[in-house]
């Protein structure tokens, strides 16, 4: 598969702050790539470097095989971008803004524009200054989707949208993916990434700490079990790979490392099981394991962030 975005050991400093500290990111053609991390991890900075708005202090970046700092205009012909904090021109109506932004890339597809405005339930006649945050975001999303692009970059696109609008957004992302487009989507909303993305890169403090498909990353995480069994709490808690074991209303509740699942299951069936629920790890948990250590063990660095 062709690589659309390739970033290697990106570094970026703002004064004394190191915003990017050797970040790597690879996005292949046709995939929806989730770019996950808490606020301040360097997601927006990375995106701005990819767009040639900021100049990296070190490392190499290519988008469509070109250097974004030198060839920004050529790259941007095929890119639709929605920033995280959308500011509109106070005097321009939403409809004018959509037309204007789409025209910069060659003009909106009229039928698509009408359908999107309808789907996002946007009033295009309001002035930019009177839109709420969510509606400003919708204006930028309609402008991005109203003309086909090869690469869509969304920086926290749904932070102002309600669940219904989120599902409209998801449907549009699926549509452009089916048309063969590549999507880079930064977020700290895990359910969104879980539902949409083929591959994920998790960033923290300016560095990519994990990258891979959702399945590959789940391998690194724990599954939650709720079991009615003959085995004692102490016996289960002693099994390798079992964490946080406790008793709740006659059931044993515990988490198991992905790598130890088979051995734990074998041990459990030997003791007899009358009821069992297993919950796959959500990205929430995966996330907490990478960033939770700050809360759990503030003194030490993330030992499990391999």
């Amino acid at each position, binding site marked *: 598969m062709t690589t659309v975005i390739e970033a290697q050991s990106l570094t970026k400093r703002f004064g004394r702050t190191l915003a990017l500290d050797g970040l790597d990111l690879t996005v292949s053609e046709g995939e929806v790539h989730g770019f996950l991390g808490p606020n301040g991890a360097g997601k927006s900075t990375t995106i*701005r470097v990819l767009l040639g708005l900021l100049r990296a202090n070190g490392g190499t970046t290519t988008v469509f095989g070109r250097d974004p700092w030198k060839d920004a205009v050529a790259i941007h012909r095929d890119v639709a971008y929605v920033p995280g904090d959308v500011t509109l021109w106070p005097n321009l109506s939403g409809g*004018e803004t959509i037309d204007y932004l789409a025209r910069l890339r060659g003009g909106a597809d009229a039928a698509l524009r009408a359908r999107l405005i309808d789907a996002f339930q946007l009033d295009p006649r309001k*002035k930019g200054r009177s839109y709420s945050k969510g509606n400003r975001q919708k204006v930028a999303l309609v402008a991005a989707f109203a003309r086909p692009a090869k690469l869509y970059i969304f920086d926290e696109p749904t932070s102002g949208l309600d669940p219904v609008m989120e599902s409209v957004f998801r449907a549009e992302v699926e549509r452009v993916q089916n048309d063969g487009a590549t999507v880079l989507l930064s977020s700290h909303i895990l359910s969104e990434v879980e539902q949409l993305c083929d591959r994920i890169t998790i960033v923290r403090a300016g560095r990519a700490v994990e990258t891979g498909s959702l399945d590959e990353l789940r391998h690194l995480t724990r599954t939650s079990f709720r079991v009615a069994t003959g085995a004692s709490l102490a016996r289960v808690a002693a099994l390798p790979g079992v964490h946080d074991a406790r008793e709740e209303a006659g059931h044993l509740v515990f988490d198991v490392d992905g790598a130890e699942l088979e051995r734990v299951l074998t041990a459990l069936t030997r003791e007899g099981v009358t009821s069992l629920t297993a919950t796959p790890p959500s990205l929430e948990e995966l996330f907490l394991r990478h960033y939770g250590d700050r809360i759990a063990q503030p003194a030490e660095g993330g030992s499990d962030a391999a």
Partner: protein
Amino acid sequence: MIAVLLQQVRRDRIVLPIWVLGTAALLTVSAASVVSEYGDAEGRTQILTVALATPALLSLRGIPNGDSLGSAVHFQSFAFLAVTIGLMNVFLATRHGRADEEKGRRELLLAAPISRLTPAVATLVLALVANAVFAVLATLGYLSAGLPTEGSVLSAVALAVTGLAFYGVGALAGELTATTRAASGVGVVLVLVAYALRAAGDALGTPDVEKLTLEPAWPSWLSPIGWGQQTLAFTADHWWPVAAIGALAVVLIAAALVVHARRELGASLLPERQGPASARPTLTGPFGLAWRLQWPTLLAWTLGSALLGLALGSLVTAVSQLDFADNPQLAAILQSLGHTDQTDVARALLPALMVIVGSMAAAAGVQATLRAREEESAGRAETLLSAPVSRLRWLLSFAVLGAVTVAVVLLATGLAAAAGFAASGSDEFAWLSLGQCLVQAPAAFAFVGVTVLVMGLLPRAAVGLGWGLFGAGVVIGYFGQVLQLPEWLQKLSPLVHVPELPNDDWGPTILLAVIAVAVVALGVLAFRRRDLET
């Protein structure tokens, strides 16, 4: 109530004192300067005689009443002080009124156990206090210039009451419109209309050169500032205008409070205008956007400077018809304005006045160019530059916008001045004034160019530096000789290099234009090499 008021006072602890102290200082300086500039009764008679024969001067000043010092002070300063205090009150009303609602702060406040009217009444109290403090300072300012006590109190109170009337205008505008921008806009326009009405009325009025009085025409009577001028403070000391303006203030403020008490939070009497559902075909590319954002401002600059141009025509014509043979003192003043020893005073005056027009055009151009920085810091430049728009094209669009602004303002002013001269039968001056206006262009372009350069090099300081360098250029250009600044420093100001027509040596003018283009190029290069900074 007290808590709400204290919070408003705290928010205003910098802005409001600047307005009050600044206006009072302006008043004091202005009164003192009349004492020194107009000289004795004979000097005042001479100047007021010229003024009464010159509608352009009357429109800028006001109505005199005899040859006393107080007459001259009232003539010179009342109208523009009324504008200043009016603007202060309009902004005070909208800052704590519509702005609070628009930003959502009012919602937070009204969720507390206070009445809907409490914040509005608190702001009214704040306005009463601010205007009262101003009245005290203004009285002291007049007294310090040696003016009579009753007149000082009257003029100060008249200004303060005019301020309250415009507070009412601002408060009512905030009830009518849904946005701060619209409310302040309506208020500012009404202040300027009040000034313009009395300007027209005074210019069209009937002067009495013997008694040095002026009977204004009917437009002045439509304006509260026109009423305030009828106090004839320091001379006749009429108090009835204060009562009239006070009644207007009460009506306006009461109307605003009545609407406010019945209105839902965030609602407005006039619904906010909707925009078009789709863009016109002309809204395309970075220049299309820059033009769309700037043209209303450009229109305002153009109209304002064209009015000035018209006034210049009649002003210079009036001056040229005066006989200076028996008035060497006045001739000397006018010649020093022109920085020249030409004997033909009108001819000498024209270049000096046109440099003022040139710096107005430059200010309009600098403001247009600085929109680039506004777009960048608001994050909207990021939106454009992540589309297929190059840095070069984006910043050049604003440089071109600045240059177009300069050209339009100069052309409009030049044509208006030429029309003014042609109307007063001076065809030679008509062509000369148009030419003298257009030769300002390279100097004004240089200011635009320098603004592009600071935008490229020092984005965060661009607004301050752009206006700072403009101000420095203007001060050095106007007052460099008077202040006896070193010659190399004077030559740094583009304004010094504006030629006086007829002119043989175009070298410096061409060089100035080349420098303007060169600094734009440097600015764009620097912009291409730096990060976007919000």
